[in-house]
């Protein structure tokens, strides 16, 4: 039931005791403001971290070859290891249940031209799965597909910046681009979050490149992703297993670091995730700390408020106020002050964050901010804690014999 008279009493009490109301309001506003700012900054830090590692699939394993650095099984050092299509097929079938996506890569540097524009680009000849490994985003057209691989079609998918460089105002889809003397049909345009270099890339079916550039079945690199359901340790074991089996396949010494190299994102992802967990802990500690400071502040003020109002409580009781209405009056007043000043603190906190965003973004803190739910939750926690903290002194005050209260000066 809404009791207008009660609220009138409360507003009058707040209004006529400004210092007291401001003091308690300030504590709460300050706690919520700190909470908002600290949370926002740490959230920003988290955002920067996750952004720095989202370019490629974070469950990827890269395998590439080099020259042997150790003699093994009667074979000399300096022997060049070259992956072939059969190795790609071997990995695909051997680890069928653990591999999510798999692709080979063949690298070439090409001079591309369209009409009067020309430029040098890196060509990556790949399998269709490469799209998922690299997190390539198709803007127009399609990516390389299995049909291209089977028929060795002369098609390419070009990066957004290649389109910008060469095609100017014409749309590239369906046009023919000249790569070092051979015409390829452009079937797609892509973008990539990995930066400008990634967007100056040209993709081609791996089989086409093998035929055109060397007429062999050599591969420069094999990339794959493991099933995302695997744990970090399973993934790391998987990487080691691949390395062991590939070394065995090419008769490379187990300790040879150069002939076959396996880079496993799992180990990197693990440390990033650990960092994120650490940040999460910091968030919790900071949040709890500020909240506890706020709660302690409110409790102190509530005790002080009740002490200050002892005489008034005595007078009210002498005039016939019931204990319940004393408790209600004190609690509602403190809840009102807490809620209002919590809101003010939220406004100031988000205001400061907003204002400082440009400065923060230069310092590795991206998009700082807090969710409304979180701050409202924090404010409610403060209100509830404040009420609980205020309830005991209010209850005690309501029990004071009026004669004792009246004697207090």
């Amino acid at each position, binding site marked *: 039931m809404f009791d207008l*008279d009660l609220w009138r009493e409360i507003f*009058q009490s707040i209004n006529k005791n400004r210092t007291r109301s401001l003091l308690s309001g300030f504590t709460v506003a300050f706690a919520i403001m700190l909470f908002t700012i600290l949370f926002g900054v740490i959230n920003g830090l988290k955002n920067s971290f996750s952004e720095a590692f989202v370019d490629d699939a974070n469950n990827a394993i890269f395998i590439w070859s080099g020259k042997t650095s150790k003699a093994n099984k009667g074979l000399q050092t300096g022997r060049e290891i070259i992956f072939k299509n059969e190795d790609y097929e071997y990995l695909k079938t051997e680890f069928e249940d653990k591999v999510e996506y798999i692709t080979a890569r063949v690298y070439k540097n090409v001079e591309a031209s369209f009409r009067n524009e020309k430029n040098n680009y890196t060509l990556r000849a790949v399998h269709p799965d490469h799209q998922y490994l690299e997190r390539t985003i198709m803007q127009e057209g399609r990516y390389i597909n299995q049909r291209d691989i089977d028929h060795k079609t002369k098609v390419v998918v070009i990066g957004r910046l290649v389109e910008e460089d060469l095609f100017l105002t014409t749309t590239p889809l369906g046009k023919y681009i000249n790569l070092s003397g051979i015409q390829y049909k452009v079937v797609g345009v892509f973008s990539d979050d990995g930066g400008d270099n990634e967007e100056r890339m040209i993709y081609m079916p791996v089989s086409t490149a093998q035929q055109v550039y060397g007429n062999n079945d050599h591969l420069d690199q094999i990339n794959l992703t493991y099933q995302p359901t695997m744990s970090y340790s399973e993934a790391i074991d998987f990487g080691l297993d691949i390395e062991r089996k590939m070394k065995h396949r090419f008769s490379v010494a187990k300790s040879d670091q150069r002939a076959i190299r396996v880079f496993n994102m799992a180990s990197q992802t693990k440390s990033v995730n650990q960092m994120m967990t650490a940040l999460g802990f910091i968030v919790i500690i900071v949040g709890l700390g500020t909240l506890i400071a706020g709660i302690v502040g409110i409790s102190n003020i509530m005790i002080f408020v009740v002490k200050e109002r002892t005489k008034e409580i*005595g007078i009210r009781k*002498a005039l016939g*106020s*019931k*204990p319940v209405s004393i408790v209600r009056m004190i609690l509602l007043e403190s809840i009102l002050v807490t809620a209002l000043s919590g809101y003010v603190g939220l406004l100031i906190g988000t205001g400061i964050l907003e204002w400082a965003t440009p400065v923060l973004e230069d310092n590795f803190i991206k998009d700082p901010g807090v969710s409304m739910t979180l701050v409202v939750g924090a404010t409610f926690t403060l209100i509830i804690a404040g009420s609980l903290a205020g309830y005991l002194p209010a209850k005690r005050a309501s029990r004071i014999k*009026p004669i004792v209260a*009246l004697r207090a000066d």
Partner: protein
Amino acid sequence: MLKISDLHKSYPIGDSSLHVLKGINLSVESGEMVAIMGSSGSGKSTLLNIIGILDEADSGVYILDGVEIKNLTEKKAAVYRNKFLGFIFQSFNLINYKNAIENVALPLYYQGLKRKERQKKALFHLGKVGLADWADHLPSELSGGQKQRVAIARALAANPKLLLADEPTGALDTQTSYEIMAFLQQLNDEGKTLLIVTHEEDIAAMCKRVVRLRDGVILEDKNVEQVRASQYV
């Protein structure tokens, strides 16, 4: 109106206890104006607080308006105080952030009256004590005599059966004291029952009956010829 028999009260002081009231017997009829006299420590204020249900007796019987006051819950006590009793204190005990009319209206708020009605009644009682023009002033803007008159208006507002005054003139100069006493006498003439605690002989002489306390017992209880305060004003 009220009847007290064999009332005892002691206060704990450290390990021992101080026996303040040692068997008080007193009855007051409706329309009386009683002064309770005694030096400090005689137990007069304690007696008044017990009569005012601000404090509780250890033993003895206290009947107020036919109701025995015993083992009351806080809630019950609040209702009785509001319905039966009006308090006037030495230090006025006005709420300092409320203006005169709001102070007077406070007991009416606890009676559950509507705002308009409260305002009307409060203004009426302020008018009775001659302060209708000061309704919007805060206690800090009033003189001592005016404060006490506001307090009297507040005590009257709930239309109590018994008015209790604890040294009502203790903080006032002689002239103002007589003005307040003249006013209290006028209330008594209109039929109100008054109980006044004082240690001043001239104030006691303005009542109709004087009860003298010493060391927790009643020394003397006699009716006196009332000195009218209005002759000094």
